[in-house]
Every structure is written in structure tokens, then in C-alpha cells.
């Protein structure tokens, strides 16, 4: 089923990443390399640090120790580097976070116009193309509040893609959705994966992981406990903690 798009170029590199919330050590010595075109699924119990880890990649969270390198740009104090990385990295949130005061189309063209200085006409044409791809071009002039959760999340994906990112981060994109809307969002994500996008997804959709992922990462207590390709990961988990976790979420 899997046909990997991975090339040799490193897109995201985390080296000895450490983060603390005050006294609380959230991320402990995380090491991760993601190649261009690779799809990574990250799972683990809540509080294991998986969201925090991917939020460090575009500097929504600050890390205290270790290195993050995205698309050959080191993430450091330099605001120029942070801005450059954010332009290359798209993010989709659990609660969509669409801008409710702007139409769907405005949501999609805002960043291209103001950040990339793209001509409005071009930005709108591109946005319509992407809305077509997530199958909601007819909703372009509506406001987010007028759409269902699944539609909103698809708009959020299109909005991220409008910046032509090299990497996409998904932070539990289907956790806030009704069961019947999960599929429409996953379908869009699978399509995106098939086109060769580099993706890091925090999700518990194990079906999605089996279909799409090149690697599945299991985190617990701020550490990467286990990391394997999906078939091995699900059928032959090595660590006790992984076995317990999988038995709990795959029971039903």
C-alpha cells in the first residue's frame, strides 16, 4: 500500500530537543529526522508531549535546549529565521482556528497577500484552486461560522496550503470532529500525502497511520519510546508501554 515519496533531503531535524514548562520537563532529548516527502504519524497518551513537539517546529512553543533545523534553516533567536521557517511550515489545528470575521476566500488569501506580497488576483485564483482540491469551492464566499466542522477543517488545510509550505504539521486535526466528518478530512490528508507532501501528524486515526505513514512514532512522558514503520509498529510493538497503548485504543 505504501509507496514512499521520501527523498534524501532532510526537511526537519530535531537534535536533543528539551523543553520545560517551569519545573515540568515536557520534552526529553527528542531526536528526530524527517526527510522530504516523508509522512510521520505521532501518537501517544495525552500529556506525552506530542503536540508540544510539533509546535516547537514552527516556534509556537519555545524550546530551551537542543537544535531544530527546518529546510536547512536553524531555528534560533533570529526573528528572520523564525519568519522564514514559518513561511515553509503549514499547520492545521485541532479547533481549525479559522478567522471568523473573514470569508473562506479571505481566510485563504490573507497570508499570501500580507506575508508573501502576492497580487490579490493571483492569490484568489490560487485559493480557489486549493478550495477546489479540498472540494468546497462553492463555500468560498461564506463565513466560517456557516460551515460544518469538517468543512472548516478542510478550509483550514487549504488556507495552510495557500502559503505553498514544504512541510505540513497536523495537530490532532480530526479530534474535534463528528465521526461522519472525520472521513472527509482524512481523505483530503491522504490525497495530500499521495502528492508527496512532507507531513507530521499527531493523530489517533490508526487507519490513516496504516495507509499513509512511512513511520509511526510513539511518545510517552516527553520521550520517543518507539519508532517503526506502520506494519511492524502495529503488529509487533517492542515496548510494553506501546503494547498497552495499542491494546487500549485498538480494543473497540
Amino acid at each position, binding site marked *: 500500500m505504501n509507496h514512499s515519496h521520501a527523498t534524501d533531503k532532510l526537511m526537519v531535524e530535531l537534535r536533543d530537543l528539551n523543553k520545560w514548562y517551569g519545573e515540568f520537563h515536557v520534552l526529553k532529548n527528542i531526536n528526530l529526522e524527517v526527510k522530504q516527502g516523508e509522512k510521520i504519524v505521532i501518537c501517544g497518551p495525552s500529556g506525552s508531549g506530542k503536540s508540544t513537539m510539533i509546535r516547537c517546529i*514552527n516556534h*509556537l512553543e519555545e524550546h530551551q535546549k537542543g537544535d531544530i533545523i527546518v529546510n536547512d534553516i536553524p531555528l534560533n533567536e533570529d526573528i528572520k529565521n523564525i*519568519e522564514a521557517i*514559518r*513561511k515553509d*511550515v*503549514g*499547520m492545521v*489545528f485541532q*479547533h481549525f*482556528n*479559522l*478567522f*471568523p*470575521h473573514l470569508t473562506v476566500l479571505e481566510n485563504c488569501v*490573507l*497570508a499570501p*497577500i*500580507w*506575508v*508573501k*506580497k*502576492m*497580487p*490579490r*488576483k*493571483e*492569490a484568489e485564483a490560487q485559493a480557489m484552486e486549493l478550495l477546489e482540491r479540498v472540494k468546497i469551492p462553492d463555500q468560498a464566499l*461564506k*463565513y466560517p*461560522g*456557516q460551515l460544518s466542522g469538517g468543512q472548516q477543517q478542510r478550509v*483550514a488545510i487549504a*488556507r*495552510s496550503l495557500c*502559503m505553498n509550505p514544504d512541510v505540513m504539521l497536523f495537530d490532532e486535526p480530526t479530534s474535534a470532529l463528528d465521526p461522519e466528518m472525520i472521513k472527509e478530512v482524512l481523505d483530503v490528508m491522504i490525497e495530500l500525502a499521495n502528492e508527496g507532501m512532507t507531513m507530521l501528524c499527531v493523530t489517533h486515526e490508526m487507519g490513516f497511520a496504516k495507509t499513509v505513514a512511512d513511520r509511526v512514532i510513539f511518545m510517552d512522558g516527553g520521550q520517543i519510546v518507539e519508532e517503526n514503520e506502520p506494519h511492524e509498529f502495529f503488529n509487533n510493538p517492542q515496548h510494553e508501554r506501546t503494547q498497552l497503548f495499542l491494546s487500549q485504543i485498538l480494543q473497540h
Partner: protein
Amino acid sequence: MSSDISNSGHKPDGGSAPQSAPPLSKPKFWNDPKKRSLLFQILLLTALGFVFYTIIENTLTNLEQRGMTTGFDFLSREAGFGIAMSLIDYTEASSYGMTFIVGLLNTILIAVMGIIAATILGFILGVARLSDNWLIAKFSALYIEVFRNIPLLLQIFFWYYAVLRTLPAPRQSIEFLGSFLNNRGLIVPAPVPEDGFGLVIMGFFGAIVASWFIARWSRKRQELTGQQFPVILTSIGLIVGVPLLLFLFSGLPLGLDHPELKGFNFKGGITVIPELMALWLALSIYTAAFIAETVRAGILAVSHGQTEAATALGMSKAKTLRLIVIPQAMRVVIPPLTSQYLNLTKNSSLATAIGYPDLVNVFAGTTLNQTGQAIEVIAMTMAVYLTLSLLTSFFMNWYNARIQLTER
């Protein structure tokens, strides 16, 4: 499809109950919410009508007994008293009607000046209190806590008696840029237009029109090439620069009527009386503290996810604030902001305490005392505040409705 449902559905009046159902016993009328509500409304109206009838009847009888006349004839009689500050020509020989106009204009002047200053100051302080900069945030917090918690009247007294009244006498005026500051107020040179000043005015309006075209051109260019143009800065530059250049090259066609010390006081120039300055300072500074809190609440009401989404899209802090946070905060800010504007307008009547000639001081004060037409004067004064407040509310509600979120 929906019409199907409504046709076959229940009728709300219960009159067409299905035939098979047993006949319903009619509820007692006091148990029927609709009838009960109607009864209470009738009772209330009757009571209100009775109260008003009694008040009017009582007043008319009393006035008749004391031999007082009612009506608005007094408005055309000569007032015979002077007013310290007037935006229109007013002398002691003017009518009582004119005192009303003078007071009204003075009230509108202080309200408009106060609203503008308080809004600007309040927005800056509100945003500043949420700043990442420790010093700025704490300074703003300190300002708000101090000025919000001291009674307004006391603040007016402070500015008037403690600050402005203690300034030196006219002979020892503080002099700067041809202006004089003393305990009689701020005296600035009055501009006197000369030949050729019309050109400057034309330049000013020409620049405004040009700015409009530039804004249009810039939008077009953005649509085609993506390049952005600093429209606001350019417009400000044009609107200030063009008239200024014309003014310089046409040989400074504006005379200045310089104030001069004659005897114990200044002649010429424009005098901003200390009462106006004190009231303006106090009202703006006091109301700004409340507006700042309103603005802060509005910004905090915008979920953090909005900022995160904008940040993740690569937008800078300033752009996020301007394009994402403030527009959404405004929806929360406008209703309480309206209340603050109304408060400021009504609080301006505290002018009486330091003798600023606003409507309450001039009309509901001196005019009322001299004519004794209490009912008419108070009614007119109340009508003014009511009208001003309703106009403000109306405008703000219109603005609020325009920016509301569309949902389903």
C-alpha cells in the same frame, strides 16, 4: 420539503385538535400565560396613566396658585448676563434662547473633544497593558488603577485648582511659541487669513482627493503585482505637505493676531479658558482608563488560537494585531465603548462645579435662576442630553451591526 412539514404539522392554537382526542377542558384564565400577561399589562398601563395624570394636574394647579406662567416665551427675552466662553457671538443683550445655544455648543464641544482624546488614549493604554514589555504594561496598569479609582469630580478639582489655577498671573505668564499660559488660561495667536490663503485651502482639499486616488491605484497595483504601497503614510504626507508647500511659496498668506499684555490681561489671540482645559483633561484621562479596560477585555476575548493560526501562517505580531485581533476585539469593545461615550457626555455636566459654561451651568443654572421657568428649562436640558445620548447610541449600534459576525 419544508412546506410539507408545516402543512401537516400541528397548528399552534390547539383549535384543530385531532377528532379522536377527548375534549380539552379550558384552563382558568389566570393559568393561561398569554391572558395573564395581557392582564398585567393593562394593570400597569392604568397605573402609569394615573400617576402621570396626577403629576401634571398637581403641577398645573400649583403653578396657577403661585401665579407663574408656563410656556416658552421667556426664550426671546433679554438674558442680561455674560458668559465666559462662547463659540458664537453672544453679548449680555442676547436672548435666553441664545444662552441655550451657547451652553449647548459648549457641551457638544467638550463632549467631542473628550471622546476623541479618551478614545485615542484609551486604545493606546489598553493595548499597552497587554504588552510584552514589562515597563510599558506596568505603567499602563498603574495609570488605569489610579485614574479609574479617584472620583471624577475630585480629578476635575485637581486639574482646575491644583494645576491650572496655581499657574502664574498674566504678567508672569509662561511664554512659548508666541503663546501664553497663565491662570486665566492658554492664550494662543489667532490665525487671520490673507489674500492667497484660499490657494492653501484648495491644496488641502486637492490632497485629500489625490489620496483617495492613490488608495485606489494602490489597491489595483496590489491586485496585479502584489506590491504594497504605504497609502496611509503617503496620504498624511500629501494632506500635510501640499498645503504647507503652497503656504510657504505663496508668501505665508496668513497673519497672526498675537496676544499682547495690556494692563492686567491679554488682548487679541484666542483664549482657551482654564475651565475648559481642566474639564477636558479630567474627562479624557478618567474615561480613557475605562476605555483601556474595555479594549483590554476585547483583545483578551479573542481566542489565543486566532493569534496562533496567524503566527503559524507567518504573520508578524503587528499584522496579527491589526488584521486578526483588533477587528474581532471591536465586536466585544463597541457596546461598552458606547456606554463610556454616553458617560463622558453626561459627566461633562460636572462642568458646573468649576464654572465651565456648559448647558447645565448656563441654561439650567443662571437662566433658570433668573427666569424661574424650572419646568421648561429642565425639560429642555434633559431633552438635550437624551437626544445627544440617543444619537451616539444610534450611531454606535449601527456601526456594531455592520461589523457583527455572520453565522449560519
